[in-house]
């Protein structure tokens, strides 16, 4: 039986077509086939959130989705969202608030924060913590990340 599959999808606004092993997950596809190494591989079983990417407008675990399942999808990674400037304010706030140290969780954390901003812009600190609870950070203790989310929001004129 053929264990390969041909897929075509849009990644950061550009079409990508490849023939790959069906067992390849989405984050490995992005990193190894497309060279987009901003999405990180951590636990590989859906716990840590380092591989978080946006598929058809919603964040997903890049390790819990086959690249084959993303055939026809619209995928965005940290590289694309950095280029478009969509999350520039969040990125600046992360730097200013020291919301990262080693940076391993940061791309996933930023994508998660971007979705929270869209779904619940007035989130309380507790709600921010719950929403990012699927993204592990072993450096900051999360407090600075919550601060950064609030800082970016305050600069847009939202609640501080």
């Amino acid at each position, binding site marked *: *039986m*053929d*264990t390969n*599959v041909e897929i075509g999808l849009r990644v950061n606004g550009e079409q990508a077509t490849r023939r790959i*092993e*069906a*067992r390849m*997950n989405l984050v*490995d596809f992005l990193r190894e086939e497309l060279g987009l190494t901003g999405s990180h591989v951590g636990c*590989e*079983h*859906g716990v840590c*959130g380092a591989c*978080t990417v946006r*598929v058809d407008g*919603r*964040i*997903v*675990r890049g*390790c*819990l*989705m*086959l690249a*084959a*399942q993303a*055939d026809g999808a619209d995928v965005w990674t940290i590289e694309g969202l950095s280029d478009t400037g969509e999350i520039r304010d969040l990125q600046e706030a992360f730097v200013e608030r020291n919301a990262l140290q080693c940076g391993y969780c940061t791309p996933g954390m930023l994508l*998660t924060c971007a*979705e*929270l901003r869209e779904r619940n812009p007035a989130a309380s600190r507790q709600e921010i913590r*719950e*929403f990012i*609870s*699927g*993204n592990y950070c072993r450096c900051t203790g999360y407090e600075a990340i919550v601060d950064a989310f609030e800082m970016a929001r305050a600069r847009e004129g939202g609640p501080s």
Partner: protein
Amino acid sequence: MKPAPFAYFRPESLEDAIGVLVEHGEDARVLAGGQSLMATLNMRLSAPAVLVDIGRVPGLAGIERVGGGLRIGAMTRHAEVEASDLIGSEAPLIASAMPHIAHPAVRNRGTFGGSIAFADPAAELPACAVALGARMTIAGKGGTRTVDADAFFRGLYETALEPGEVLTAVDVPGIGAGWRSGFMELARRHGDYAMIGLAAHVEMVDGRFGQGRLVFFGAGERPVSAVRSAALLEGESWSDALGARLADALKEELDPFEDLNADAAMRRHLAGILVQRTLGPLAAAA
């Protein structure tokens, strides 16, 4: 780790999906949202030769009123269930369980039917299905059949689904007058699988409990309906003394497993805590 190699099929009709599943029998697994299965594939706890992705099969997603209840399509994403007003009004037990299922990124892809069919003993939705008396619709080569939740969950990751079959929908009865739901779980970290959890669905008449179900998850190989303990509720109003009697009864009735998170004695103790924290406020809510 990475999954072992497999052949990947993505049928675009239910008929084709069943055809592939029948052809490959025990070697094939259904891939729905993949939020549990992919993890087990990555860790090579499971290595099927064939994956049948039902993500493009039409008609499997969505929530609709059917008869007096709700029909939840197997491919309905957790995020959609969580946001559904119909679920909120007709199946409040499920609504209150949703935020406990993993994390937002997982709920964006994970599916209602996937969670039921995977039948993890510590998962929320199988317990809710048993507490509510849900009915599963299963499609196979010979047509469809229905199985009650009680009979559907057979053991550890084991269900009434046979090779060649697909869970297509779950029917949940509408909430009856006087019935109330409570849901609570205890986990080390938010979003982790629960050490133990409770899905309670009980009738209240004039401040007194009537019939009801107390279904625990993380307490055995499948959802555990504590029938003898629930019977203590009938005709009683809530009191601390009743809570204490229930906690004692649960210690007798439950026979939970042990793991690194909690031994059996701790799980029995936590079951009593859960029932007191859940039923007290549930009885007080007018």
